[in-house]
């Protein structure tokens, strides 16, 4: 051991004290001793702390060993206390042990001193180890509970949002229909427009909820973090007002992450708004970026982060800080300490959703009266930047004459979509579940160009249905609609299928359908292996 033992000696006899030290040094224990004689000096030393071990004489002028022991137990309960003294009966010796002394060494037999100190140090070391292990276990249990809770709340929020999306699709769709029918001068127009605005706000709230439950479709790209922050700097300054000083400390390195740029901005904005609200009387807000090597998982996460290179984005404030009971809930949706109407309680939960969806995690450190600091960790990416996607095709007519099979179990949504499609000129067959769609579809397959189906339905799902119908009609175009953003990936990689997230506008629907139907297949030879219509089956199509 290289660090010397910090020894507090309560000993009025300097010769004895030196002898004890010499014995220890000879035994290979290097010491940083401090000797005190009086009660006051002893108490002062205890209060000062930084002691590894106390060696005390039992009989002192105007002070006795038992009282010294009591003081030590009270002020430094974890520091071992060894009596090194002359003259003591067995009884007294045992009494001192009962009162918490670690050992009792007779000055006449200092040979026991070194082994005793060594054993005490070993025990001390073991106890510290155990304490560390227990603390680590407690910490990881706490993190696991937190992760499970967030997972459960996320699932709940996701399910709720799905139902609301269906309702909103109906509300928004019908009000759009009304507006289109009304003409510009209609007296009720402004009322419908108000309805639509409220619907938009509701849709935005639902998007946030979905972001929290990591079900918001995101469009991740490899991008540099620093420009994202510097780009929103002016907006941030306007956001935080004049009382708060904003400092940007972006790293010199090119920190690259794979994330949705809009979502990254959302992280920064939400954290900044949170920091601003923590400093109603002004203060300092620091945004910092840096590269970080993580060997541990940050406290707030959903699944453990593999160790490696990360990018850290920190937002800290000099506000009032948060007590632990507040900190325990900050990422839960609808948790807010702001007064009613001031916050939705979705800001930080949105941050949590985005960060965990991007494979990252967060740490929060908060000290009452000093401020709060959020550290966001996102996996560092070394890959090349992605090219911007090809540009949209030019404006084309939204109308059509093709035949569409519409499958949706929510009748309000189905009727809305059906009416919209018919208005655009399409022929529509409808079914309210997968099986019904199969029966209807197989009878009209010849003229059918597009299957427009909900994904999640009781019984046969939209994807199963599509698979079945594609068996007989391989060139059938597919459009999946869903309120569950779990389904976002559906149809990806298949150019003649598409996905539309509820709630959608009639325009988005019309455009997506037109795009799909106008798509000319790359390999234009139409599959002739299957019968063109099921009405004319023949013996030779059993291939």
């Amino acid at each position, binding site marked *: 051991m290289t660090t010397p033992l910090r020894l507090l000696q309560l000993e009025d006899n300097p010769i004895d004290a030196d002898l004890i030290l010499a014995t220890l040094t000879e035994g290979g224990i290097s010491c940083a001793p401090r000797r005190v004689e009086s009660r006051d000096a002893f108490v002062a030393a205890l209060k000062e702390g930084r002691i590894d071990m106390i060696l005390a004489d039992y009989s002192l002028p105007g002070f006795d060993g038992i009282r010294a022991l009591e003081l030590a137990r009270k002020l430094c309960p974890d520091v071992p206390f060894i009596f090194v003294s002359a003259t003591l009966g067995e009884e007294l010796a045992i009494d001192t042990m009962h009162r918490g002394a670690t050992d009792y060494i007779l000055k006449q037999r200092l040979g026991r001193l070194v082994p005793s100190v060594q054993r005490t140090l070993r025990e001390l070391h073991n106890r510290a180890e155990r304490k560390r292990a227990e603390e680590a276990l407690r910490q990881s249990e706490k993190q696991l509970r937190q992760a499970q809770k967030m997972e459960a709340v996320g699932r709940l929020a996701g399910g709720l949002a799905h139902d609301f999306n269906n309702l909103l699709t109906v509300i928004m769709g019908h009000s759009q229909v009304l507006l289109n029918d009304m003409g510009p001068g209609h007296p009720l127009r402004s009322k419908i427009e108000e309805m639509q605005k409220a619907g938009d706000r509701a849709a935005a709230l639902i998007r946030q909820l979905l972001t929290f439950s990591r079900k918001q479709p995101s469009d991740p790209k490899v991008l540099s973090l620093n420009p994202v922050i510097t780009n929103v700097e002016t907006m941030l300054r306007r956001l935080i007002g004049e009382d708060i000083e904003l400092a940007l400390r972006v790293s010199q390195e090119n920190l690259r992450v794979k994330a949705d740029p809009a979502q990254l901005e959302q992280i920064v904005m939400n954290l900044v708004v949170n920091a601003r609200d923590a400093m109603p009387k002004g203060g300092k807000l620091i945004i910092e970026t840096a590269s970080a090597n993580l060997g541990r998982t940050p406290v707030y996460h959903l699944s453990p982060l593999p160790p490696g290179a990360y990018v850290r984005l920190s937002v800290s404030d000099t506000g009032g800080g948060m007590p632990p009971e507040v900190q325990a809930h900050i990422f839960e949706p609808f948790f807010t300490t702001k007064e009613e109407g001031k916050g939705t309680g979705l800001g930080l939960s949105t941050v949590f959703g985005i960060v965990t969806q991007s494979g990252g995690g967060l740490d929060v450190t908060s000290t009452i009266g000093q401020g709060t600091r959020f550290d966001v960790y996102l996996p560092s990416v070394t890959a090349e930047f992605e090219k911007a996607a090809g540009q949209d095709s030019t404006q084309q007519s939204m109308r059509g004459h093709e035949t569409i099979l519409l499958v949706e179990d929510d009748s309000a949504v189905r009727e809305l979509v*059906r009416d919209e499609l*018919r208005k655009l000129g399409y*022929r*529509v*067959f*409808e*079914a*309210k*579940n997968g*099986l*019904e769609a*199969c*029966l*209807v579809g*197989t*009878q*009209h397959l010849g*003229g059918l160009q597009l299957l427009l189906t909900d994904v999640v339905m*009781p*019984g*046969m799902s939209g994807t199963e249905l599509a698979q*079945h119908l594609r*068996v*007989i009609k391989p060139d059938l175009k597919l459009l999946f609609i869903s309120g569950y953003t779990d389904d976002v990936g559906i149809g990806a990689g298949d150019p003649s299928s598409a996905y539309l997230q509820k709630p959608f506008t009639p325009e988005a629907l019309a455009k997506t359908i037109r795009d799909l139907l106008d798509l000319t297949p790359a390999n234009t030879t139409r599959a002739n292996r*299957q*019968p063109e219509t*099921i*009405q004319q*089956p023949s*013996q030779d*199509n*059993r*291939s």
Partner: protein
Amino acid sequence: MTAAKPILLAEDNPRDAELALAAMEEQHISDKVVLCHDGAEALDYLYCRGQFKSRLKGNPAVVFLDLKMPKVNGLEVLRIIKADTNLRTIPVVMLTSSREERDLAESYALGANAYVVKPVEFHQFLSAVKELSTFWGVINEPPPEGSCSSN
């Protein structure tokens, strides 16, 4: 809404048949169900022969066909139905416990109107059958092209 036409259920497994009948009972359509225990019996019904010689004329509203049955299997019955101009319009739902892509593809290639993998669990099976029985109107009158879309 009462389905005037009967429903033909061809199923050799008595347990599966019982489950299907129970579900149809719940939908108050069980009295319309004709249960056949193999493919040959189903064909006898469709062609009004054998024990069904004196039955009321007319096609069933829908045929549920087990894929694997003794005597004449489901695919063969399906092939015969879809090859006969008088029977071709009857919707045929393949009920099967096979998830094999080949069976699915072959069923549809032969002209099946739906392919339902028999769910193992009772309530799933019930809801699958219930789902089917909720639109007998559609099945009773197979719509000529286009009429289904008029409102």
